[in-house]
């Protein structure tokens, strides 16, 4: 029985990459979920493109009327809560933080990613248009870029490919790919399979992955916590 991990489980695995004091930017989609799984006692400082560091959790649906404020939103437009030690700055300073390499970890969604770490995630393939937004600056400049994604498209095609078919967000930017069946490191020599979801073999994963996978000596089952 080859079950795939849930979106929450992918986020849970990514949360294990965080560290105390890390400056982290979470993209739209699965990446946003990562903040729910930060280990107790660890200080993670979230960065938002619109000029904010160290903000608190998203306003829960039931508190929306009381707490939602258009002047306190994250880059996805979600209402968030204030937190002691947060601070605000303008957009150019915010991207100075990104471009200057002060974001430790950027977690981004994936349309396609290659064995060279090329990432495509901004152009909506069906519509022929796309929003570059702040993702390109993050992909180019964050110290570590983690791609968070289902391993295949809805119709079962590999998202980890030899070459991107849609316009790139950034060439060679992805360091780690966390999918619903695997954890894969992007090395200078290509892709290195490091972890697999319960029940999945190397061959199973390779079959759904276009480039060749090298297998880590310490290959193991994905640990979520």
């Amino acid at each position, binding site marked *: 029985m080859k079950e795939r991990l849930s979106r929450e489980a992918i986020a849970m695995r990514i949360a294990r990459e965080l560290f105390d004091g890390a400056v982290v930017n979470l993209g739209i989609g699965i990446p946003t979920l990562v903040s729910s799984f930060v280990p107790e006692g660890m200080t993670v400082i979230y960065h938002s493109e619109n000029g904010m560091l160290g903000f*608190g959790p998203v306003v829960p649906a039931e508190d929306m009327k009381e707490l939602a404020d258009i*002047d306190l939103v994250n880059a996805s437009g979600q209402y968030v809560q204030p937190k002691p030690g947060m601070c605000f700055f303008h957009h150019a300073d915010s991207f100075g933080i990104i471009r200057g390499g002060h974001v430790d970890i950027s977690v981004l969604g994936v349309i396609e990613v290659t064995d060279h770490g090329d990432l495509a995630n901004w152009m909506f393939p069906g519509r022929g248009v796309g929003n570059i937004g702040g993702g390109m600056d993050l992909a180019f400049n964050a110290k570590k870029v983690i791609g968070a994604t289902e391993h295949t498209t809805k119709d079962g095609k590999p998202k980890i490919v030899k070459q991107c078919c849609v316009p790139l967000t950034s060439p060679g930017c992805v360091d780690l790919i966390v999918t619903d069946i695997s954890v894969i490191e992007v090395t200078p020599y290509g892709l290195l399979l490091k972890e697999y979801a319960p029940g999945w073999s190397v061959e199973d994963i390779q079959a759904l992955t276009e480039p060749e996978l090298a297998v880590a000596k310490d290959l193991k089952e994905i640990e979520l916590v």
Partner: protein
Amino acid sequence: MLNKVLDSFDAAVADIPNGAVVMIGNFAGPGGTPYYLIHALARQGARDLTIVANTAGGVGLTLDYDDHRLLFQNRQVRKVIASFPFSTSASRPSIAEKQILANEVELEIVPQGTLSERIRAGGAGIAAFYTPTGAGTVIESGKERRVFDGRPHLLELALKADFALIRAYKADTFGNLVYRGTARQFNPVMAAAAAVTIAEVDHIVDPGELDPDAVVTPGIFVKRIVQVKEDPGFPRHPERTFQVRGQHQGKEA
């Protein structure tokens, strides 16, 4: 004596001519968007505008409201320079999106960091700068590439405007501005990059009422100030501060 305070949004935008380059503070919802100035510009009717803003309006994040999509709806826009020009929803394309795809409006799409830095450069007298962002992507097209420290960079040019429509929290009568939370966004960099900056604010106070160490936009950048006197009905608690004390909790976020 200096008098920057105007009574009406319509008066504040009355002299924006056809063909003007207009920057508009805007990001993911109404926070920091000069809602009333945009409506006044829509009423005023200037055409062939070049709009510089993060979005092209109506992108559908969180709240659906009349932002600068009104200017596209009125066919006042010739060109838009933006990082996030399209709707987030394929099933609800924005007005600008349709006009862009029909070649009725020209689009220059710019990565958000490059957009904000180009505007900052415009205000700060930097003609051009080299950024790594975009090298090896479609953004490189037509741009000069140059390697610094072994890494390719692109040459990006400053952006300036004839007018900037911005939103702030408080102004003093000299035009010094403070912002509230993430409503700051593009507003301070746009304030410096336009020949005429017009600020829509919650409160106008006397000089000396703002802490000079906490002023974000120096008053010299702001030519006109108009106070909002009605409630547009957005979720907002402007009387509250975002300064919260108490035990820091590592878990939440």
